[in-house]
């Protein structure tokens, strides 16, 4: 990574043993728009705010939630362009895994490979860490799963998690409302309510994005019409 003039890493240790660049990356994540994910008994839901910088922006062109494979989806908090790069790399890795093993990549493997990419950028010459945290939702033979991957490359499996601006309130809200045997539709309602908690302004089907994985294991980004139905149920 990087040519010979930049073969030294820009991410270096501080005397206290911290990697300051990663701390700053986490700050960048913390100032990004709130996103969250909930693992239900029969599926996973991920959601995010979609606040656009101006009313003139065509909201149909913005897609914050992306599919990595037919049964794995991802959402982020932080820098959009960094997210795009990671999505592209992860999709390619999933395809390479399939070409090599003729097996669809398990969720844990894809999380691991994505985390490895993010870690590379904390220890290579001339590059900076990614300014995003990812929430990867997948449904494979090990059931529904939800993973968070941080700029450092560390990953955690969650039952429910949130990232971004409103993370502490959102997590408290989720802690109160989460139950082990939650159904997916309950989880979607909880996700919407959690987003609503920290939302500045009026929540609508055009300024949030929701992605779900049901037992059919097909990752789907809900259309504004479908989000509207769920919003009405929550009201």
């Amino acid at each position, binding site marked *: 990574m990087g040519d010979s003039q930049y073969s030294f890493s820009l991410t270096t240790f501080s005397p206290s043993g911290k990697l300051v660049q990663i701390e700053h990356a986490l700050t960048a994540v913390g100032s990004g728009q709130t996103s969250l994910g909930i693992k239900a008994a029969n599926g996973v839901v991920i959601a995010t705010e979609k606040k656009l910088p101006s009313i003139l922006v065509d909201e149909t062109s913005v*897609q914050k939630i*992306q599919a990595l494979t037919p049964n794995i989806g991802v959402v982020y908090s932080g820098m959009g362009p960094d997210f795009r790069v990671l999505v592209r790399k992860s*999709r*390619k890795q999933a*395809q390479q895994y399939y*070409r090599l093993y003729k097996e669809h990549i398990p969720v844990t493997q894809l999380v691991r490979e994505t985390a490895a990419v993010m870690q590379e950028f904390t220890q290579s010459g001339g590059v900076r860490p990614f300014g995003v945290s990812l929430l990867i939702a997948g449904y494979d033979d090990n059931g529904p799963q939800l993973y968070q991957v941080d700029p450092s490359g560390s990953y955690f499996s969650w039952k429910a998690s949130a990232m971004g601006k409103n993370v502490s309130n959102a997590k408290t809200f989720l802690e109160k409302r989460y139950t082990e045997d939650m159904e997916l539709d309950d989880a979607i309602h909880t996700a919407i309510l959690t987003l609503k908690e920290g939302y500045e302004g009026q929540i609508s089907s055009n300024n949030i994005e929701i992605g779900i994985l049901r037992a059919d294991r097909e990752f789907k980004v809900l259309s504004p019409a479908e989000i509207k139905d769920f919003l009405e149920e929550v009201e």
Partner: protein
Amino acid sequence: MTGSMDLPAKGGFSFDLCRRNNMLEKNGLKLPGFRKTGTTIVGLVFQDGVVLGADTRATEGPIVADKNCEKIHFMAPNIYCCGAGTAADTEAVTDMVSSQLQLHRYATGRESRVVTALTLLKSHLFRYQGHVSAALVLGGVDCTGPHLHTVYPHGSTDTLPFATMGSGSLAAMSVFESKYKEGLTREEGIQLVSDAICAGIFNDLGSGSNVDVCVITKGKTEYLRNHQLPNPRTYASSKGYSFTKGQTEVLSTKITPLKQKVEVTEGGDAMEE
């Protein structure tokens, strides 16, 4: 092979062995011939889309290696590809392009187009100058309509309303040339494809066994694996065979008793468990 051999130059044809080959040929050595691909694969365009067909025999010279292999490969939900030639080459190249098409679908958010698959295939084959021995019939339906193409191992392509490839292509083409017309219905298309493949199966040694058919229309693909089984195997009778005494004529009998080599002594301890 001597130890002091230089590394071959990257790219381009190496002419090092040409002189040796010419000398050997002059001295009477018969050069290995090119094996004609043992397959019949066909495709045609009908009123609602495309129909692809293939036989199911895989050959290794004069031996049938697989009596029921799959020659119609998945490229995209709306695009399928029949492959003739070296089985490994057709499998590898269709898998590779199928993977590339999937990535492209994720990046664009759209259904794959047949010309995209076509261009990916032909660029790859051209780059390998015919050494990837894959002759393909590519068909599918996308937003611009139904398409049918043939791809040759060197990387050239044709766009046709009906096409055949493989060693049985002449037999199949004769059927198409006499019976194809524009605006066939689905049933007529499937029947014509089956007839063409059967012509290849029965008249070409390199093709045989069953008929696979794939029908692609807008929004729907039907893969009819083993649509026809015109060569059922007759297995041994399940009742078994009976050979009564006296059916086989005995010419002479010689009985040799084996010498007693083992002494059995009674008593002693039983073997440890």
